[in-house]
């Protein structure tokens, strides 16, 4: 890098960098995303999506040029507070964007709440972020773990299944997703006869698959992502269960994992706030642009990144780039309708997307939409004072 930047760093370490940025200074956006570890690929997709949108806006939001500062959060909650402080206190960022891991997002939410920095969460579905931790300056462009689960609960009930077994990792995201499923499913008269868990991130499923076979439920609901999702789907097929006991899941089961699942995921039904072959112009344009920019097909994470930037733009436009006007920023965002590749969505009072959840069926390497499972679904946002 150049000498100037190095000097700035040195100054920052020594502590002479408490310069405040005037309005014509670039807007500092802190990207706190995983660059290493299991979620590294997700972090990249989110960043790509975010930058695609800002590029479309001529690298300016709310009249201010944008400068990115990146921190690798390693998906490690034990380091999360320090990493987020590095952005808030060390780099004095105006906006905070992150992250994938729920535990890390929890730490970010706390730091953002205390410092008042605007935070946009582009993935982590922890309910607390828009629940007990909800705050005028915290927004989420993705989903809450509860949402896809709830929608799938309704779908599975409609299919006529009465007794269902759920299986997930024993961690917050899994618990919340299963809770959503139970809410949706039992409302329609279904019964979850057993909730199976295995320690995160253990991927030895055979024992639990055998247990499923012995319980003989009408269907199975599952929440897995990444490597665990690949292995679960393959093992489920190999155990011969796929043909006898239908498998349903939150969308991450087949998102970005179909290729690795090597055909074993074919035909799986999942619910998510995004799908392939959505019939809307925005999505088509987004896909073309993303493909051109990164030589990759976009995924749901890229959409979430893209929409995080959209949320930011709406807020910043309303305050002409002055991030200190938090109330106006929030009011504008709450009032806005976002034209997202996923379809139109709004933000609830707790700042979680109120969005359509799609039912998708895995075909080849894609998850084309079948129908809208639940229209304009809002997270109950338990514990949020604004709700």
């Amino acid at each position, binding site marked *: 890098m150049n000498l100037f930047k190095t000097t700035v760093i040195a100054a920052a370490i020594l502590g002479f960098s408490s310069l405040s940025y005037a309005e014509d200074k670039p807007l500092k956006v802190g990207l706190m995303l995983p660059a290493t570890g299991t979620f590294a*690929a997700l972090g990249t997709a989110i960043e790509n999506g975010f930058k695609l949108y800002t590029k479309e806006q001529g690298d300016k939001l709310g009249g201010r040029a944008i400068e990115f500062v990146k921190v690798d959060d390693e998906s490690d909650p034990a380091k999360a507070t320090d990493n987020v402080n590095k952005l808030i206190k060390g780099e004095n960022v105006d906006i905070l964007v992150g992250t994938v891991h729920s535990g890390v997002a929890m730490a970010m939410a706390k730091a953002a709440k205390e410092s008042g920095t605007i935070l946009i969460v582009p993935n982590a579905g922890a309910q607390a972020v828009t629940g007990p931790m909800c705050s005028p300056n915290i927004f989420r462009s993705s989903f809450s773990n509860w949402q896809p689960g709830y929608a799938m609960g309704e779908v599975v009930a409609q299919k006529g299944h009465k007794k269902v077994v759920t299986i997930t990792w*024993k961690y917050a995201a899994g618990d919340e997703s299963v809770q959503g499923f139970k809410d949706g499913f039992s409302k329609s008269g279904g019964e979850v006869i057993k909730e199976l868990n295995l320690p995160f991130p*253990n*991927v030895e499923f055979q024992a639990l698959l055998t*247990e499923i*076979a012995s319980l003989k439920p009408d269907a199975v609901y599952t929440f897995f992502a990444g490597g665990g999702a690949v292995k679960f789907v393959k093992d489920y097929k190999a155990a*011969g269960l796929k043909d006898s006991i239908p498998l349903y899941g939150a969308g991450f089961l087949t998102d970005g994992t179909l290729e690795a*699942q090597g055909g074993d995921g074919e035909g799986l039904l999942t619910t998510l706030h995004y799908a392939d072959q959505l019939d809307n112009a925005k999505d088509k344009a987004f896909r073309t642009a993303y493909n051109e920019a990164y030589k990759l097909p976009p995924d749901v994470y890229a959409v979430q990144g893209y929409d995080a930037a959209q949320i930011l733009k709406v807020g910043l436009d309303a305050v002409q780039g002055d991030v200190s006007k938090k109330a106006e920023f929030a009011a504008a965002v709450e009032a806005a309708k976002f034209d997202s590749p996923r379809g139109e969505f709004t933000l609830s009072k707790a700042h979680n997307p109120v969005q359509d959840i799609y039912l998708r069926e895995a075909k080849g390497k894609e998850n084309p939409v079948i129908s809208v499972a639940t229209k304009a679904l809002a997270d109950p946002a338990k514990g949020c004072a604004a709700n």
Partner: protein
Amino acid sequence: MDLSIFLIQCLNALQYGLLLFLVAMGLTLIFGIMGVINLAHGSFYMIGAYMAYALSPIVAHAFGGGFFSVLVIGLILAVILGYFLEWAFFSFLYDRDHLQQVLMTYGLILVFEELRSLLVGDDVHGVAAPEFLAGTIPLGDIMTYPVYRLFISAVCLLLALGMYYVFTRTRLGMMIRAGSTNREMVQSLGIDIKLLYRIVFAAGVALAAFAGMISAPVSTVYPGMGSQVLIICFVVVVIGGIGSIRGAFLAALLIGFVDTFGKVLLPEAAGVLVYVLMALILLWKPDGLFKTS
């Protein structure tokens, strides 16, 4: 749990145990004989799995493919890697404090993880099992069992027997065993201990990589997979008694059973059971199940 389900669970436990043994074998070799606490063992496993993924198109292009040619080429590369690593990073460490080796292997973990990210990327990948092993056999009324898993179990058993034979019946095995108990003595017998160590290390790396390659079709290939198996491997080796092939074998099966039935019968405590088992065994037998003298 009726009888047929119970039997299937036993099969699951056995199969998982054998898989653990396969992965832990290389560790017990390096750990038991050279006394090196090799934190990078998981990385070698990861390297193996990624080789199974990344080499197959290359091999397919050059030799017309085949799972087994990938396996052979991967093994050769792993031996070369192990040989090189011992020469470059470990050969000067034996006289030093053991904890220095820990630091070294920790550094290697970081390096390998990033090289993986640079070379292959951070995506999750599946590896196809060879065609003729891809089928399943029916089990009970609605379950089936993948043939490839049975194949892995068979390979594990063969390897276990092979290792046992090498250790107890061959001259190399004798030298290795002697080298683990008394370095000076072996040296005074005119055996090149440096070469011996290099061979053992290379063999350990090759075993780990082999485990990664052969289990890639069932485990899938993903970032951070190495550190996941590392701790459980140490548990296997330590419960079994360091350096004992027999002990590692038994310990792996034990863990297989505890883990499998724990998940089903005591799901709340599934994560902690293995460690409770280890603590109990070591309190009962402070040197593991089979202490090598």
